[in-house]
């Protein structure tokens, strides 16, 4: 008995870490995501997929030993395009998730912590925002920003913060009158200190879970934007590859659709499973279920 008392109890993060590392499927998914991230960086630095624009054979050559995913209309290797597409997909996932995280956490924490008129204003703002159909908002923002990668980052980021904002607001309201926050105030902590050093670390798990979900939602949304003609230009992306397939399938050219769908499916699935594993490990409410 005395032994267990002196033993330091595991913190939420230690507990979550040990739970995650024991989950083999989650670890596999994490490895997959890391491999994708490394491929994206390697492709951005020009180590892999740099020759995607080179003509290596006849137009629409089917998959063969040399080119496992065949060639596209211009005789370019679909495999190289798929690899190069990782760069666009991963950067869209990362930047979009970051933008929505910053907006969601800032607005949610401000509303929840200060309450009153500020809270009313922010709640009004996101209620209004969610009343407008997502796809219309997305289209309107890309109208304004024009085409290109930056427009996609902003359009997807600016339209995806409401869910996180709502959650953070609720959590901050629950936390702000807890004893540890009063204690921080008693030793002279100001609003900023209380909010960022004391309350936010306690709601960080929500941010992390949301981040992994936002990441994969953005990767999927890029396909829709490509279809609407608002996608990436001048470089391969999975969205434009899938969109190209609408003209190719009738001629029996299925490999470009297959390659892009497969590449996207693996990473989105991994992020989904990882997100669920993170939720199970980090959300104390679900413990023991």
């Amino acid at each position, binding site marked *: 008995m005395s032994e267990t008392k002196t033993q330091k109890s595991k913190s939420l993060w230690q507990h979550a870490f040990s739970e995650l590392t024991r989950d083999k499927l989650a670890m596999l998914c994490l490895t997959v995501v890391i491999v994708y991230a490394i491929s994206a960086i390697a492709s951005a630095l020009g180590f892999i997929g740099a020759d995607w624009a080179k003509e290596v054979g006849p137009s629409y050559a089917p998959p063969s030993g040399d080119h496992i995913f065949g060639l596209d209309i211009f005789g370019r290797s679909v495999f190289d395009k798929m690899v190069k597409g990782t760069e666009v997909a991963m950067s869209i996932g990362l930047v979009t998730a970051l933008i929505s995280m910053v907006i969601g956490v800032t607005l949610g924490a401000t509303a929840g912590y200060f309450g009153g008129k500020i809270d009313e204003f922010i709640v009004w703002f996101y209620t209004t925002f969610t009343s407008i159909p997502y796809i219309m908002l997305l289209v309107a*923002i890309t109208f304004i920003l024009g085409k290109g990668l930056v427009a996609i980052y902003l359009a997807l980021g600016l339209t995806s913060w409401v869910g996180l904002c709502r959650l953070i607001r609720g959590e901050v309201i629950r936390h702000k009158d807890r004893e540890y926050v009063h204690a921080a105030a008693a030793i002279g902590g100001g609003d900023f200190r209380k909010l960022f050093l004391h309350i936010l670390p306690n709601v960080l798990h929500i941010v992390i879970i949301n981040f992994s979900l936002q990441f994969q939602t953005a990767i*999927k949304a890029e396909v829709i934007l490509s279809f609407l003609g608002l996608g990436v230009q001048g470089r391969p992306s999975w969205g434009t590859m899938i969109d190209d397939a609408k003209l190719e*399938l009738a001629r029996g050219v299925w490999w470009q659709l297959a390659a892009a769908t497969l590449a996207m499916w693996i990473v989105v699935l991994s992020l989904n499973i990882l997100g669920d594993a993170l939720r199970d490990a980090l959300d104390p409410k679900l413990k023991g279920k």
Partner: protein
Amino acid sequence: MNIWAYIIRRLLYVIPVLLGVCLIIFVLFNLVSPDPTLIMLGKHASVSQMEDLRRELGLDRPWFLQYLDVVKSAFTFDFGRSWSTKQEIIEMIKAGAIPSLTLSIPAFVISTFLSISISLFVAFFRGTILDRTIVFLCVTMMSISSLAYILFGQWFFAFKLGLFEISGYEFGFPYFIPYVILPVLIWVMLGIGPDVRFYRTIILDEIYQDYVRTARAKGLSENKIMFKHVLKNAMIPIITYVIIQIPFLILGALLLETFFSIPGLGGIVLSAINSSDFPVVKAMTILISVAYIIFSVLTDVMYTLVDPRVRLK
């Protein structure tokens, strides 16, 4: 708080939200979007041509009058004429709504019914291999791009196997059916993954409540607990989720309608997007937003009447 006071307050909250929606739409389309006259007249338009067109479209008036126009259209549904086809927008919407609804209503009903049934089944077998397999399947299905489903479904089932119409549409009751079967099936496939997962979570949230333990303790059968207690309580969030999706059914499915050449609202919106036809895009946005606001008020009011706990908040 008095229940009627709460309901009236909730109803009044519609006004600021509606004004806010109009404000966002106005800011996006009238203030910060690129000059529409430039898009309509092309790069070589003269300044006087542009000024004339601006006057014709009413874009030279002070901003608050233009904002008032947006607000007015949210009440009167008078959206003016399309810039590209010159038709009355409300007439275009009326004509497009029917084909859209013939696709979206059956698809929505089938996928909702199927998802709730599967999730009940899965929740009943929670924690078993069966549960885990189905959840894994759901996650797998929702990780595939929706465009890939549509492209593959149309190519394989309609083009290769010839089981369904590849595309097209006919108006009138029995005639439209062959054209919507495949899009409906694809819609169901697209929705089933996320929906089953969502409903399952709701039902499991209820299963772990104290009242279920009490019911078990007094010796009720698992069937009775599931259908009499759990389902009854889970129905509130489920119905909310179902109702709140209805406004978006008007839009049909932008992607499905385009691929299957169904002359619905999705196609109208898409061509408006491609031709920068702002009034049409604005009209559709306002219409769906208004519908969304009305439906969310309805669910909130219904919530209040059904669940006494809500009023305490």
